[in-house]
């Protein structure tokens, strides 16, 4: 190849045509590739919430059926977004849950409340769409009418209605409160954590 001006001139033309040709073929091949875009929220094959891990710290939820009224979560909360009223019934000596409010607007999703819960009653869901029109409506009031607090039975749960809820709660604290065993996690997940 000559390195003089004329040679370079024609080489420039050749290279321009060849490289543009190649570049155009690359971009044309992209026309038939599947887009990566996820069309959240309405055109997704699976709800995004369902693709999240079990330990995801979304909006808090309370299973009143298994809440013992121990107030551990209220005490653990660093910003006092949980308010519980659970007076003792003077006749039956039972805890009556009269109020269980969580202010989602204040909650910072630290997870301390669900760590201390003995039955896994208060737990994070995988729900994250919390937008609302007023601050008042962001307070979740779980007690519709006063209920008797749950008491832990000695030999498992006999009530078939409550048993699956309790089982779920216990599995939740098992998985949520335990630190992840880093030896079992793959290196990719380690860096993500």
């Amino acid at each position, binding site marked *: 190849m000559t390195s003089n001006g004329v040679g370079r*001139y024609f080489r*420039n*033309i050749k290279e321009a045509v060849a490289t*543009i*040709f*190649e*570049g*155009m*073929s*690359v*971009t*044309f*091949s*992209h*026309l*038939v*590739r*599947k*887009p*990566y*875009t996820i*069309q959240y929220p309405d055109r997704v094959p699976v709800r995004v919430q369902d693709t999240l891990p079990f330990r995801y710290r979304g909006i808090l939820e309370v299973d009143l059926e298994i809440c013992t009224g121990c107030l551990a979560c209220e005490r653990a909360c660093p910003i006092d977004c949980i308010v519980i009223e659970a007076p003792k019934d003077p006749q039956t000596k039972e805890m009556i849950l009269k109020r269980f409010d969580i202010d989602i607007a204040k909650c910072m999703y630290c997870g301390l409340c669900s760590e201390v819960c003995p039955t896994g009653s208060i737990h994070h869901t995988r729900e994250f769409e919390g937008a609302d029109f007023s601050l008042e409506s962001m307070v979740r009031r779980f007690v519709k009418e006063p209920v008797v607090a749950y008491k832990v039975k000695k030999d498992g749960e006999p009530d078939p209605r409550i048993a699956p809820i309790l089982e779920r709660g216990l599995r939740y604290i098992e998985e949520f409160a335990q630190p992840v065993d880093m030896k079992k996690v793959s290196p990719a997940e380690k860096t993500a954590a």
Partner: protein
Amino acid sequence: MQAFVDRLITDGWFSGIPVELVYVLVMFLFGAIVVFAFVMPLVPLTVWLERRVWSRIQSRVGPNRVGPQGVLQGIADGIKNLLKEDIIPDAADRPLFAFAPYLVVWGFVATFVVIPFSSALIIADLNVGILYLTAVTALVVVGVLMAGWASNNKWSLIGGIRSAAQIVSYEIPAGLAILPPVLLAGTLSMQGIIHAQGWAPWDWFLFYNPFTFVSAVVFYVAALAEGNRTPFDLPEAESELVAGFATEYSGMRFALFFLAEWGNLYVIGAVVATLFLGGWQVPVWTDNVVLLNLSQFVVFFLKAYFWAFVAMWIRATLPRVRVDQLMSLCWKYLVPIGFTNLIGTAVWMVIWPQGNRVVQFGMCLLALAILVQFFRRVRFHLRRAKPELYYSPAI
């Protein structure tokens, strides 16, 4: 069109009205029909298509919510722009600032006078058609320069000056590339140039000889530069000049610049189709004049729009060139190549006054070979990357 109106006049449709007045009214009427029935719907659709093509090339989805597959996106954007405040800066030169966008749109809309949509559908088949077209598109530079100067803003001024330098420079290769087909057809009239070609690819000027083939490429590149399209969008260069000459514009005036820019895509395609791709030529398949003209319109539209698609595709492929590269491309490469094409075609006409059929078929085969090689490269890239494929344009 004029023949049509002449016949109406001799048939006594407009008896009692001065003939000049009839002509003026008809001119306004046809101008309005073309602008409102063709140009105005076309531009938003082009913008939408560009955004869709571009986003698919970048593995995105693009606008697909407003109307079926987002085709009404342009209307939504237009309404938004209409409702926005039209800001004119204090330090701006008010009359010039307000007038500049209209001049740009004028330069673009006036080209539709000579665009031959079909054998009968043309507003005025001027005998200097293609010359008129280059002259009118050059008006855009006045508007752009006016906008850049009147904005009283450094970005705008640099954008305007760049645009002036660019358009004035690229007029030359564009003009030189127009000449070979004009030589072959022996006329400047758009219909005349199309009549000199045939419906079959080997009758097109694109494949007439190697010089006209290169000439088509030169013209397309020069036209892209004149239309301020990537990779020659230096006048508005977002990363350097904010929005160039359009920096200070807002609302509808801003939208007008972009109306002209995207409308120009179709004009570029129409001129390439007329000069090199045989325009609206179709084999005579029916005696019905309306049906024949309809098929011609469709063929011409597809030919023209193919080049608009290529412009979108180029925009998604090539980065912006530098100013010195822009100038060296024009003066060192396109202008000498343009002169070579012109002289080559002239010599060719002396040697083979009726054209050389063998070369014409050979050029067609060469183009086919390039196309096949292109799709082989596309297949190669697809096989190497092993992506998830998605052929449907709808998503």
